[in-house]
């Protein structure tokens, strides 16, 4: 029971006025304390699924379990679960509320019922963590899209949620911010936060994730450790998802060499494998 933090069981959901369901008998279990990634091409229902996690949408069939308990759609339960699940939308405009950066960071904190002192402390900490000190008093509409995204991330992470759901978090970030974001992810993960993220950055998924879900047309079609999932190259290509560069490279080596080995997850692992097989390589090619 403790193993799963969030479970979706047989969810079916159709948007009002649409014929095709966005989710079709979908089941997905998010393991506690793990770094999970949800992959799938645009429009396959990832965002819709995320909106079910904290009760923003209510399924037509099926149920949602939070820490083993069925989610109830009354005001108290919803407000409780929304404080524990941090949801970062793809479009930052959607969740920025206040007039300036620091005011916006404080909005979620006040919703948690914290006192002024604590809010002040946490806002200042978030400003430092995300390098936003200089922008603190700036109005939100003076920021670039990437900066807004960064602020929306900071606003959610300042809440210290036990599950963090991110919808394409690196979509508008520049390379520097992307790097900063990954470092921040490490820190959050070490603090024991479970992460569920939708992303198209497959190279990073391979090196970072503990568990990968692949979604297609409102259903989960594949799940497992990254090395396993990316082993299913044909299926992934068929789903128009592609595979990481390392997997492509890996596949170029003779079958005999790869037999029984896991796909290396990053350049370092790949390099080590190469060094270890140096002689065999010469023989193989």
């Amino acid at each position, binding site marked *: 029971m403790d193993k799963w933090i969030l479970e979706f069981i047989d969810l079916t959901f159709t948007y009002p006025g649409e014929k095709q369901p966005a989710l079709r008998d979908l089941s997905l279990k998010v393991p506690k304390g793990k770094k999970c990634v949800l992959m799938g091409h645009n429009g396959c229902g990832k965002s819709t699924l995320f909106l079910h996690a904290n009760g923003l949408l209510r399924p037509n069939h099926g149920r949602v379990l939070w820490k083993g308990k069925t989610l109830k759609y009354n005001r108290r339960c919803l407000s409780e679960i929304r404080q524990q699940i941090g949801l970062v939308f793809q479009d930052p405009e959607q969740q920025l509320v206040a*007039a*300036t950066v620091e005011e916006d960071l404080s909005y*979620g904190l006040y919703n948690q019922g914290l006192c002024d002192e604590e809010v002040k402390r946490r806002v200042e900490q978030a400003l430092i963590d995300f390098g936003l000190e200089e922008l603190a008093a700036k109005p939100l509409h003076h920021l670039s899209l990437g900066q807004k995204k960064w602020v929306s991330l900071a606003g959610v992470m300042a809440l210290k949620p036990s599950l963090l759901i991110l919808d394409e978090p690196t979509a508008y970030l520049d390379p520097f911010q992307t790097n900063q974001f990954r470092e921040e992810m490490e820190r959050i993960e070490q603090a024991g936060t479970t992460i569920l993220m939708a992303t198209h950055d497959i190279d990073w998924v391979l090196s970072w994730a503990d568990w990968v879900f692949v979604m297609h047309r409102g259903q989960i079609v594949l799940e497992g450790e990254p090395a396993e999932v990316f082993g299913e190259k044909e299926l992934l290509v068929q789903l128009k998802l592609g595979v990481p560069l390392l997997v492509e490279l890996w596949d170029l080596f003779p079958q005999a060499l790869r037999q029984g080995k896991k796909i290396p997850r990053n350049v370092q692992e790949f390099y080590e494998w190469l060094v270890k097989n140096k002689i065999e390589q010469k023989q193989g090619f």
Partner: protein
Amino acid sequence: MTSLERLTYTNRLRGLPAKQKGLFALGMLGLTFFTHVPVQMMIFIWMGIWIVVYARIPIPFYLKMTGMISLFLLMSLPMLVVHVVPLDEQSLVQDDSMGGWAIGDWFLYLSEQGLEQGGTVFVRSLAAVSCLLFLVLTTPFAEIMQLLRKIGCPTMITEILLVMYRFIFSFWMSAEQQWIAIQARGGERRFRSMGFLIANLFQKTLIRYRQLSLGLAARGFTGEIRVYQRPSKPVSKRYLLESMMGVLVLLVLDWYLRGS
């Protein structure tokens, strides 16, 4: 719209606490209500100095703003200045009339008293406007909001203002982006493009509204938008001194005018 917003963040008086600026503006506004015309003119000039010299608001920008407002004021003046009486009562208003025309059974004339009244109203309005412009041009909206919260303005009003403020800019940006997109994709017929733009904007606004309510809820909306209040900045003694001296001078002058 956006340039006004930008000025509130870049002007030289940004560092002054909103409280000081707000109190000063309100105090001056109060003065305009009971003082005489010459004092009101001085208020207008003095506030102009605050805005243009101290805050360094570009003169053309300030002139454009006051010019636009004056235009509206002038448009309402004919109501006060032009009087109409039945033709047979023309002799009764002989003293007041500065010239007029008979139209049918009616006599239309320029009233001397009306002109005086119009002048008084115009000067007073302009002086009052300059006081408010001072606050609006030098203080960022976020700080005005904080001031409103501090003085106990109902949360209902501050929240509506806040959401409107966010919406105005996201609306403005959507409009701008859409317009550029239409132009870039060859929408030469201005009139038709405009209709297209408006229809699209309406749709977009609805979507944005729905998204924002989702966003609010996802962040644990509890029925109230509460945000962090920045500690107020220290009051500037130099400006405090000038404002107090100025008010004193104006009061003395007005008292003197009353006597004469």
